[in-house]
């Protein structure tokens, strides 16, 4: 296609940072129009993310020296398969969250704060995906933390404030650990670029300590069991669009950073021991999160515990990294499928909660029977979380099990399958009230967009069931490090 050739030379990556940042600044200046800035930003960012994914797919990874200063002096932006897939997932989920928030926040006096903080969060996540520099990554990480903590506190009241404070403290501890790792790496090698570090890191004490500090710090931010205790209250008590953003996107951000570090900076370090430890924690997360989801009395709490469980799968990354060269791609596809499905579930939950005025599972039956579109969305997206056939979750779990079996790690395959059973149980528990006989009630009147957006996202999880091949071929255009 001729237009692809013209596009090949264009630097698209910076625009994925500029657009949301400009949107965030403008929304902050004109809070009265914040939602329109938000919507415009969401649309433009999605277009740009699509173009970037196409460009990377056609021409391979691109490295951009900021200000024309080549590393080691300057900072680079790296737009490769992994980054552009995460950007695209964030843009799709982000647009859905923005549209849903139009309805969810309608009539709320403090609604503009959501838009301002949400656009900042979006800009920070995009900047993080694209950054190719360990210190710059730290700055973007701080932005992500500040914006998400403020978003958690936005619900107001004691419980969200306590949750936000706990989240802030855990995140700061994680950031400090990460920063110590950055300092150690700079002290040992005198460079900050991911690629440059990857070319130099060899087995010795300083990079080992840096790797442990950075990984553990980021694990706390991703809420891997047993560092998960802050997540359910924070994700469960936030406004629904915020819960969706946190569970679908923010948790993936620190996972992405761990993956990026181990792919480019630390591939020379041995994983022995770490892979088993991570696998055990992952299994613990799947089990504990699943069991807690079976017991939680409120709809959004169930979904939040489901995130604890599903974060477990993400950290099967470590056993896979050691045993299977392509294994991480299965985990990334799982992260994408989970992001879309979890956002759909949280948004649907938000719609039901607004319609019923509460989210106690036991009393939701009438509204679930009255709001069939939303219940249907909850069902399909729930099937995606379980990994039932014809959903993205199915392909994702298929890839995970296949990878585990190819690498001879059948025990992790059992974890995936067992986790699927638990997920099945709690998703049926979510849907159960809808199937009880009784009257149907549409509850409070709601804008139509709050019903259509979860449904569209849920249908997208089915679309993702057919996206395995293009996603994997995009991921094949990822910059790996180590001597590169």
């Amino acid at each position: 296609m001729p237009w692809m050739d013209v596009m090949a030379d264009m630097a698209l990556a910076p625009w994925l940072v500029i657009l949301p940042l400009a949107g965030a600044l403008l929304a902050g200046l004109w809070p009265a129009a914040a939602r329109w800035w938000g919507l415009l930003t969401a649309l433009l960012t999605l277009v740009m993310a699509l173009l970037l994914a196409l460009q990377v797919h056609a021409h391979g990874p691109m490295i951009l020296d900021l200000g024309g200063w080549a590393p080691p002096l300057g900072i680079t932006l790296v737009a490769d398969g992994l980054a552009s897939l995460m950007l695209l997932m964030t843009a799709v989920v982000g647009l859905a969250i923005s549209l849903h928030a139009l309805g969810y926040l309608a009539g709320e006096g403090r609604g503009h704060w959501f838009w301002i903080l949400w656009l900042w969060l979006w800009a920070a996540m995009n900047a993080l995906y694209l950054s190719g520099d360990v210190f710059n990554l730290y700055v973007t990480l701080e932005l992500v933390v500040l914006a998400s903590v403020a978003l958690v506190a936005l619900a107001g009241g004691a419980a969200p404030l306590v949750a936000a404070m706990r989240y802030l403290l855990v995140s700061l501890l994680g950031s400090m650990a990460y920063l110590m790792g950055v300092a150690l790496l700079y002290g040992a090698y005198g460079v900050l670029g991911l690629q440059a570090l990857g070319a130099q890191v060899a087995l010795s004490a300083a990079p080992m300590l840096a790797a442990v500090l950075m990984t553990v710090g980021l694990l706390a931010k991703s809420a891997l069991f047993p560092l998960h205790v802050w997540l359910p209250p924070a994700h469960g008590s936030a406004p629904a669009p915020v819960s969706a953003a946190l569970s679908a996107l923010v948790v993936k951000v620190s996972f992405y950073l761990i993956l990026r570090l181990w792919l480019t900076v630390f591939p020379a370090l041995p994983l022995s021991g770490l892979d088993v430890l991570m696998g055990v924690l992952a299994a613990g997360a799947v089990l504990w999160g699943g069991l807690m989801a079976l017991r939680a009395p409120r709809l959004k709490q169930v979904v939040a515990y489901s995130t604890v469980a599903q974060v477990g799968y993400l950290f099967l990354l470590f056993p896979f990294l050691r045993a299977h060269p392509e294994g991480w791609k299965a985990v990334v596809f799982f992260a994408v499928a989970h992001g879309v499905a979890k956002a759909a579930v949280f948004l649907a939950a938000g719609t039901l909660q607004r319609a019923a005025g509460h989210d106690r599972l036991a009393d939701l039956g009438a509204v679930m029977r009255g709001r069939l579109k939303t219940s249907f969305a909850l069902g399909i997206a729930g099937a995606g979380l379980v990994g039932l056939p014809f959903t993205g979750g199915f392909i994702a779990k298929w890839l995970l099990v296949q990878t585990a079996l190819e690498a001879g790690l059948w025990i992790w395959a059992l974890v995936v399958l067992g986790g699927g059973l638990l997920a099945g149980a709690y998703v049926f528990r979510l849907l159960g009230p809808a199937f009880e006989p009784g009257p149907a009630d549409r509850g409070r009147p709601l804008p139509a967009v709050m019903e259509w957006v979860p449904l569209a996202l849920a249908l997208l999880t089915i679309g993702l069931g057919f996206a395995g091949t293009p996603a994997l071929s995009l991921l094949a255009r990822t910059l790996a490090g180590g001597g590169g």
Partner: protein
Amino acid sequence: MIRRRFTSPLVLLMSLTLAGLLIVVVLDLPPQPGLAAPVADAMDRSGVRHPVTAVLLNFRGYDTFLELAVLMLAVLSIWSLGLRDPIPARPVQGPVLHGTLRHLIPVAVVTGGYLVWVGSSDSGGAFQGGAVLGAAGVMLMLSLPREMPMPSALVQRLGLSLGAFAFLAVGTAGLLTGHGFMGYPPAWAYHLILGIELAASVSIALTLVLLFLGGRSRRVRHGR
């Protein structure tokens, strides 16, 4: 308290282990020249004469831009939490305080402005200048007998985002004119950097004063 009895020794043990590990590893690090040589080589194209300013505003300007964004986001986050408590009225002070203020504030403003300007050739810059200006603002707030009249909400927001806006605008212009995102045309670098530093110092000073005050004032728009 029972929980603290168990967790405190654990926290102490973990901190000591980490400190010990860090000491052992850091002492063992080979001498490392870092990036002093590449920075020195590129100084003539940076537009400024002081290496720290060259790194902060030019070579790694993107980091500094995002740091400005962190400061601004901190204020926005605090504003999103709610209104601030009004400063309680204090007794009218004697002539000494007022006389001192009348001398100190102009000195602080001149010092802050000088620090921003001198940053291009010597130690100084937007953060240092902004800190001095911010301190002057906090001093003024504390010593007035009553609440200082705050500027309108729009002016507060404009001042707060001035630095980030200027930086983003210049950075985007660099992208559009072929100098790369966050890049300057070398001939213009000095003027652009000085302009960004001035704008940033205003925002930083205002950020510090607003952080000191806590939540948003009643004049920052509450409704949609």
